[in-house]
């Protein structure tokens, strides 16, 4: 088991380094420096600016400084566009919002998806099953950037029930639409995967044995069927988490939640490379960490996996 974890770490750490170095090189290779888009400045001022931001150093030294700042101090440096703010300030402001509705969405997607899938599998060919299957097919073509306008159209413009944007940590009415928009398609995928793997497990020998010896079906499902049926779901959670993180960009922009995704898009439009890189690296790290956790959980639950 420890060897397995170490092996996974051996992939995670270089991935992180590749991500940081690649985005740094991309930024460096960009035509024009970060200050060329502004009004013309005298060459002396430009040289000073470059010196201030460390851009006059050789490339390897810049990378080394950046790496050590990021890894040792979690310091992503100053923003290129907002002179008085550092990348850390921008992240610290938006990240709690994204994290809040992001985790809510994740929990909602897993809870609702798994229970929907399990119920659909148990009551196969009932109206509930058809409902679950219908939803999961429909939601496949309703990604968050389609869900968001539709939700606003229904709940804000027509029914006037929910605010169409903005964010408040105290008022859950602001949370509902971001969470629903972000989680629906994942909930549907989880429900579909759970249903099909549950059906497969319910037809397997050990369940038949459990039935034959007369266990109550509640016990069969909870004790014997659920654990093997959840394996494919767990392996889906990694990619789902990743695309939820990316999806939060849409939600932040569309619902103006003030989350980190809005800063990302703004920095992309402003060519504020420092902020873009900071957010890319932060979310990339989260992704890689989460994949690591999922891998470890998977190795722990699935006895068939080879360490």
């Amino acid at each position, binding site marked *: 088991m420890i060897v397995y974890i170490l092996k996974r770490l051996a*992939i*995670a750490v*270089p*991935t992180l380094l*590749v*991500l940081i170095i*690649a*985005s740094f090189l*991309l*930024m460096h*290779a*960009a*035509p024009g420096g970060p200050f060329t888009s502004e009004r013309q400045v005298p060459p002396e001022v430009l040289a000073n600016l470059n010196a201030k931001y460390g851009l006059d150093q050789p490339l390897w030294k810049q990378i080394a400084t950046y790496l050590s700042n990021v890894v040792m101090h979690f310091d992503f440096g100053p923003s290129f566009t907002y002179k008085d703010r550092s990348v850390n300030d921008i992240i610290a402001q938006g990240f709690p919002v994204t994290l809040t509705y992001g985790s809510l969405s994740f929990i909602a997607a897993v809870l609702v998806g798994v229970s929907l899938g399990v119920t659909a599998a148990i009551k196969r060919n009932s109206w509930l099953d058809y409902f679950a299957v219908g939803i999961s097919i429909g939601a*496949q*073509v*309703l*990604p968050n*950037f*389609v869900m*968001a*306008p539709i939700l*606003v*159209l229904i709940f804000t*413009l027509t029914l006037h029930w929910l605010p169409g944007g903005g964010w408040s940590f105290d008022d859950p009415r602001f949370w509902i639409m971001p969470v629903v928009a972000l989680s629906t*398609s994942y909930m549907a*995928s989880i429900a579909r*995967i759970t249903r099909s*793997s549950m059906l497969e497990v319910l037809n397997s020998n050990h369940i038949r044995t459990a039935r034959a010896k007369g266990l109550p079906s509640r016990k069969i499902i909870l004790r014997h069927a659920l654990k093997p049926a959840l394996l*494919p779901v767990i*392996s*889906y959670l990694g*990619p*789902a988490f*990743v*695309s939820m*993180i*990316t999806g939060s*960009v*849409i939600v932040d*922009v*569309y619902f103006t939640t003030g989350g980190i995704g809005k800063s*990302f*898009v703004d920095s*992309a*439009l402003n*060519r504020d*490379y420092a902020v*873009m*890189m900071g*957010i*890319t690296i932060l*979310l*990339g790290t989260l*992704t*890689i960490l989460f*994949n690591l956790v999922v891998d470890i959980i998977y190795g722990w639950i699935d006895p068939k996996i080879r360490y």
Partner: protein
Amino acid sequence: MVIDQSKMASLAEATSREDVAGRSLWADARRRFFHNKAAIFGLGLLIFVVLFALFGNWIAAWNNSDIDYNVMGDVTLSGPSFANGHYFGVDDLGRDLFARTVQGTQISLLVGVIGSLIAVVVGTVYGAVSGYFGGRVDGFMMRLVDILLAIPYMFVLILLLVIYGRSIGMLFVGVGLISWLEMSRIVRGQTLTLKNREYVEAARAIGVPALTIIRRHILPNLVGVVVVFATLLVPLMILTESFISFLGLGVQEPQTSLGALISEGAGTMNYGTLWQLAFPLFFFIITLFGFYFVGDGLRDALDPKER
């Protein structure tokens, strides 16, 4: 929105099974495909969308760049109408939405198909080489894929687009960079089982060079898996492109894509111009549905066991 890996694995197994005497795998598959109602429905949708993209401009009464000043900015006039030739109404700049939707569908389809084609070429060759040579080469090549897969590509893609300019060419490059990874993994798995077959062994025994064996004996047997996966990749590529265009970071005016049109429609819908969202959304959804249904149908046709 993630392609189900266990189903792909089962499909790989089914297409690599030794042929039983009688009807060939392909004749069997064709029969099953045409008996699958959902797949036929999906095929119908796809044919409709493709015809719309190819010949829509013949029906359109307006050019996609002309501005109709008579109806521009007037909600009561700019709606869908046969009288003035704007079958889908006009967008908020007064351009004919029918022609715009045709243009957007063309670009979206193009991005999807090209992204998928890149995946087919690069992913197949990479996976086949890695699987056939095995050992160290395989270990290195697949570790590289693992690392690349763990990178949150959406952010890197946006980084690329911002730094190197937002052009369709760049979009193709970016989408192509990521799309082949999963494909190479699946192809490698299939190659691993194929390379131990007697005919491959026989070819090796009489001294056929490795690359010829791959080309003549391995690649033709990969067709089933590759075709199914490529079909299922197209909607994912369209989604990726739409996601980026929704944020305003993808294709640029005067070109457009379904994602960009949906974004525009979502931005103006609270003025009562609902058709600006509805028509692009409709074509977006039926395109995705079409590809999913056809892809699923092909998979079921080639691998009848998995249901």
